[in-house]
């Protein structure tokens, strides 16, 4: 009963969201959908990650999404994660600007508006899920990289990148990756 009630509520919420999307769709056509999808994906990526010990200060420390160089996605992600938790962690979205301190950021998205290389170098080998949307970003230290294939938002994963940062990505996530690069040197 509870489940059904919740399902009903979620359905209702979904309906509202789609109405809102349709409303916004009319004003801002292509970009917002892609941003929304990417924001949803970013959020979902976090749920498929097994963080290494020490990634969080405490068990109930918040999981922080850092969005660099794409305000729309930051906003969208803020909406997607609003009121949600992943395991024991509450979710926070932080809009970043080039040169910002990346401490406490668990998931870092580097959008097209941000400087990729400095950001990547700044992360080093920290246990940070780095998501990018630039070609060949994986070879430069990104873990997940968005691409557009057949008109859809898809993503590719660098298993080596994840491994270097001590992240374990769920095999289920790997299964839906468009492209999986296992060994990728820096």
């Amino acid at each position: 009963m509870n489940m059904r009630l919740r399902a009903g509520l979620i359905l209702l919420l979904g309906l509202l969201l789609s109405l809102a999307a349709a409303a916004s769709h009319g004003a801002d056509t292509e970009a917002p959908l892609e941003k929304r999808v990417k924001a949803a994906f970013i959020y979902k990526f976090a749920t498929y990650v097994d963080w290494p010990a020490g990634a969080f200060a405490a068990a109930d420390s918040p999981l922080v999404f850092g969005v660099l160089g794409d305000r729309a996605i930051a906003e969208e992600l803020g909406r997607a994660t609003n009121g949600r938790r992943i395991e024991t962690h509450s979710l926070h979205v932080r809009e970043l600007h080039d040169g910002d301190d990346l401490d406490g950021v668990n998931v870092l998205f580097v959008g097209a508006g941000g400087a990729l290389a400095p950001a990547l170098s700044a992360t080093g080998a920290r246990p940070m899920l780095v998501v990018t949307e630039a070609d060949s970003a994986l070879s430069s230290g990104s873990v997940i990289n968005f691409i557009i294939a057949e008109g859809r938002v898809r993503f590719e994963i660098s298993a080596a990148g994840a491994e270097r940062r001590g992240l374990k990505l769920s095999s289920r996530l790997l299964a839906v990756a468009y492209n999986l690069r296992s060994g990728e040197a820096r």
Partner: protein
Amino acid sequence: MRLLAARSVRRKLQLLVVVTTLAALVITSVGMVAYDMRNYQRVWVADLQTQADILGQASAPALAFDDPKAAGENLALLKARPSILAAAIYTARGALFASYQRDDAAAAAFPAIPDSDGFSIRRGELVVFKRIVDQNGIAGTVYLRADYPLVSRVLNYLGMLALVMIASMIAALALSARLGAAITRPIVEVGEVARNVIERRDFSLRATRTSEDEIGYLVDAFNEMLGEIGLRAETLESSNRRLEHEVGERREAEQALQISERRNRTLVAAITSVVWTSDGSGRMTEEQPSWQAYTGQETARCLGLGWRNAFEARDRDALEAAWAGAIEAPGLFQLELRLWHAATHSYRYVSLRAVPIVETAGKVNEWIGTVSDIHDQRMAEDALRKLNAELERRVAERTAELEASNKDLEGFSYSVSHDLRAPVRVVAGFAKMLGRQHADQLDAEARQKVEVIQNETLRMGVLIDDLLMFARLGRQAIRAVELDMGAVVRSVYDRLISQHAGNPVEFHLGSLPAAVGDRVLLEQVWTNFLSNALKFSAKRERPVITIDAISDATEYIYFVRDNGAGFDPRYQSKLFGVFQRLHGSSEFPGNGVGLALVHRIVTRHGGRVWADSKVDHGATFYFSLPRDPAPADTQSS
């Protein structure tokens, strides 16, 4: 039930086992099928739901990252499960996201929107919907459509059950045939025995007891019953036989009775002697065929008392007197009298007999009488009687004549003897004188001859004396006195032994009973016996003479026994005759009168004389005297 009633016990038992087995199997099968179907459905549904869940979980990332291709690939893996006809994944919003259809399956439309969680079974197909839930809630829905081969499974199941049942039936039949035999065999045997008993009526048959259960008890009871029935049947049969026997006897008796009656009737009709009947008072009341045939009386004349007139007039008084007595005291009536015989036209002697037929209270109801012609018999008897009388008269005459002549003879012999004595005595006297006075004139031969004359005349004198005595006994009266026989014998013996020359005699004298008799005559008897005994035993080296007596109720028997020459018992009858001698006079002297004399004396005393002997073995002479001598015999007969 009709089927059960019709068959034998064995069949029934088999049927019972088969039906029971079948029922058990059917119930078990129904239960099993029901359980299996339910279980099958549950398992199958659970299986599909699990499958759906796995699919959902596997496809959740694909949904999350909007990758229908990956979802399609996931679904394509269902090829490994050919029973799944179709599958689909719907998004959380209910749009078809990815789908799969078995190659050969008929294309069926996927539902436009997914149902809620659950399953449904329709037309042999199972349809399962399963929500995909992840951290963010419902991610989508998995749709699975699979074969649900319940009917074919049931059919398979039933086929297998049928096989099992057939096998079970066969096993049950075989087992029941084998095990049931243990139960049915005794019953069948009992049945067999019962059938044999009925067919052969042999109640000695017995069923064999082979088990200790109720059937064994039944067999025992059956056997006991058979025994009882056998006993009853035997009793009945023997009683029947007895009855038949009795009936046979009765039939024979009836036949015998009929034959006897027929014979009697024939006899009565054919009888020549006269049969008549009269009423209780002696009146003839009906026709008397045989009576009328004999007497020639008409029916009318003999009826009533008329029959009496047929008798001789002189006999009628006797008849009437006797008849009146017979009527007064009914009993067998018999009278001989003369009856008119028509055929010979004369009166003939007849024996008239009649018996009364006595009814109750001594009243004579009827007389049945016969008339037997005894005329010829009567005449013959009369003639015989006359002849006898004549004979007796002549015998008496002859006897008288004989007695007279005897007397004459005795008188003559007496006188002869008496008259002979004188001349003999004269001859003897003169011979003696001649021998004594003229002895010197005679030579030796002449003297010897004179001596012979003397001896012979002496002997002749004795003979004459004896004959005289013998003759005198006929006329002399017996003077009976009480005699001490022992003393008599002793004196006689003493007298004789004093004159006896020869070997010494061993003499035994028993105690003799006293008797009544003439002393002189009985002394003569003893003298004769004893002198005989001495004489005939004289040649023995050691003569033994025994005298004793035996007594019985009527007489005393005295006897004299010697161990002398004895005599041939063949001549016993001659022993007591006058002048009868069994030995030559040269051997034993004697004149043959002595025993005749003894006989005469003893006979006159009312006794008897006899002897027994064997040659050379001695002789015993007996004489008896009555205990009560007849006083009448005082004169010669």
